[in-house]
């Protein structure tokens, strides 16, 4: 599964994307796996209420299932326009 990070999430984790081998069934489970890895993930995901997630480029919730998902992206609330 490809996991992408944008804006300050990308900066805290220190990379824009990575391949992640995971059996996580929901976004929240994936976040828990990442947080368990290293402090920089823990820092980036400290407050998931301040984060948004997209599954295969569509906005989703943190309790959404990951079945069949190829691309997960984490980022702060968007500031377009």
């Amino acid at each position: 599964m490809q996991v992408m990070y944008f804006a300050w999430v990308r900066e805290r984790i220190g990379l824009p994307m990575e391949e992640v081998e995971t059996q996580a069934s929901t976004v929240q489970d994936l976040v828990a796996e990442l947080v368990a890895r290293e402090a920089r993930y823990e820092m980036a995901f400290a407050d998931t209420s301040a984060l948004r997630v997209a599954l295969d480029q569509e906005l989703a919730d943190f309790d959404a299932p990951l079945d069949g998902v190829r691309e997960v992206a984490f980022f702060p609330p968007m500031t377009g326009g």
Partner: protein
Amino acid sequence: MIRVQAMPFDPGGELNTFTASVAGAGAVMSFTGLVRDVSGGLSEMEIEHYPGMTEKALGAIRADAMGRWDLADAMIIHRFGALAANEVIMMVATASRHRKDAFEAADFLMDYLKSRAPFWKKEVTKDGADWVAAKDSDEDALTRW
């Protein structure tokens, strides 16, 4: 028409091209957003985006507007990359037979662009760089529609 690009563009030229393409519409609205140097010391504004998702999100927002209002057409152009103060960030244009439809649709497009299109702004000054925080009011604005 949806365009996401690093290159500057000419809002006046885009307005004229759009207007010429919607013969019979009668009412054309445009909104242009420019980089504001709020702190007075802006070196540049960096706009990050999510290639692929950005185009999808803008396309979905545009399609939503086309479905809700009686529009001849709707256009969104949004830049990414490093921009200087007063550079054009983005432009929205709508065309309709009815002024009200053109107005409301442009307002809607702006509201959705702000909170549903994957762009993030970072202000770089001599003192450092800060990501622009989303406002609760931007999210709240979506409940209007």
